[in-house]
């Protein structure tokens, strides 16, 4: 039975609303900035609505929508060459004995992460920020599991390489 416009709008609103928290979580993890994440989620909602007719099975909405969110975030990273230092405004939430050292580690890793290619950032964030299994990462990026595994390994190597110079300097410093 053909849906009316009102029914289509209501169905989309219901599904998008249900998925919004997870999408926002995804966007904040990848973009690491609340404001940019908001824009990314909004872009994703717009794109999803525009492509809504192409989704044949509403049961697959969540995975389909998450993929749009990831692609939007990746495009934004690519387009804006979005690079920022660690946002440690919320660092006070982390209460550990060696807070200064931890914040320093956050800054260093965060800056190194920001210097990576958008594709590397996305795969690392999905795996380590959001604790996705490799299978889920592969599904989300629409790639085979071995490819996801290889991409993650390469990304981590590049992240480690980014962190090498300061480590060397630390080693030779008096």
């Amino acid at each position: 039975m053909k849906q009316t416009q009102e029914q289509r709008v209501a169905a989309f609103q219901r599904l998008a609303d249900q998925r919004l928290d997870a999408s926002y979580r995804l966007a904040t993890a990848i973009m690491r900035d609340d404001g940019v994440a908001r824009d990314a989620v909004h872009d994703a909602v717009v794109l999803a609505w525009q492509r809504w007719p192409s989704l044949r099975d509403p049961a697959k909405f969540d995975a389909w929508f998450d993929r749009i969110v990831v692609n939007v975030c990746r495009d934004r990273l690519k387009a804006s060459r979005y690079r920022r230092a660690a946002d440690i405004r919320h660092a006070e939430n982390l209460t550990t004995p060696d807070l200064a050292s931890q914040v320093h580690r956050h800054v260093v890793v965060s800056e190194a992460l920001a210097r990576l290619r958008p594709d590397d950032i996305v795969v690392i964030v999905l795996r380590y920020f959001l604790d996705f299994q490799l299978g889920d990462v592969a599904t989300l990026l629409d790639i085979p599991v071995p490819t996801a595994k290889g991409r993650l390994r390469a990304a981590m190597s590049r992240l480690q390489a980014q962190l090498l110079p300061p480590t060397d300097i630390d080693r030779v410093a008096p």
Partner: protein
Amino acid sequence: MIERDIELTLHELARVHVRHEAPADVREDARLVPLTTPRRRSWPPQPADWRFHSILSAARFVLAGAIVALFGGFLLAGILAQRNEDMAPAAVTDGPSPTTTEALLSGMVTEEVEPGVFRVLSDGVREPLALDSQAKVVAGMDGSVVLWHTDRRCHPPHALELRASCTGYRLGDPETFSISGATEPEQDPGGDLKPVGFGLHEVGPDGTIWGYSFIQGDGRNDLRAFDGDSLVVRKERGDYPSEVEPGFAADGTTWAVWSDGGDVKVGRLTAEGWEVVQGSEAGGAGWVIGSATGKVVLIRVGEGIMRATTEGLAPSYDAIEAPLLHVRRRPAGVADDGTLWWAGVRGFERPRDLVRFDGSIWQTFEIPVVARMGPLGTTVAPDGSVWVGSGAYDERGSGLHRFDGTAWTRFLPQFTIFSLDIGPDGAVWFIANVEPGDNRDHAGLYVITPEAVLATD
């Protein structure tokens, strides 16, 4: 740092950055999206849609052929031009059209603050022009420029005491106009005179100055025009939530939309008064907007957009679909080709984007970040470009931003823009200051000449 430490740090970073709940405004905007955004009905194509793929392939083939032919043509033309260089006629460039701004500025005392950008120190009648953030400038279709000079002391409830400082005038014209209080015999028989606020709308092709008056808290307004002596009421008590704002056609007709007991009515001004051309019982949104030259006047009534002609109203933009139903706000401007522009429509992609509707396609364009900090005015120039004035405390003003349909150009970044309008010759008139946060009586009237605008293209 070993890999284990990196992984640990990444997990810790997740605790810093990842948010688990979408904020309420993100949720609200998402809910609005399907109501304000048209769907792409046939994109991406369905796998079974073999005809689409066939047509697409053919189109690609034709396009590739056309590009090759075009490239070859250019190459050939280039070779021929090189050979005939000595015989070629002098290049013709599009110079600025005859400007009324030049004549206007010749009678004023000005200071050139940047090449092609002048501050008006005196209009030849008054000096100095010390304005503030509430002042407004309107560049009329007749080439004249009108200022409404007010400050916060003019606003109710202080308007009566200090109304002398709340005046308007046409640059170079000794006549001034101001507005005083009004009584409300219906609501308050024998009551005191109540202060009246005034906002400048537009200057018609015949030079008539139009604006609206309001009484604070009243919720309604009167459309007024300056008759050379005072601001007389030309349309009483529009009860539509927004002001009754007229639009002007190049043929001299003045159009307006107003609400009358819930019905939206469209009328044009005749010697006898307002002639109702169309009434809609549907209620809903209504506005009228004319392009800077008056070549196009579009009227929103109910769920459609009409085009004003000398004969009356003609249907236009039938396929407005859902977005317009929810975008009730009057557009920021319309170009001579009928393209409508809005700035900052909530729920329409990003709330602070520039929205364009050409009659069939809705598009959004991102306003530069610095302009987003405080877009204070948006208008459409006769050449179809869109200008956004903005203000920000930490970006040295933020300045003027011009969008030509593809790219943004920033002018005068040190300025905070309070009011902005563009004359029929393309001159950009604006009220601004260069001291962020210090808006009181420190603003001035500036103009960018059409030649200076063209020089940046």
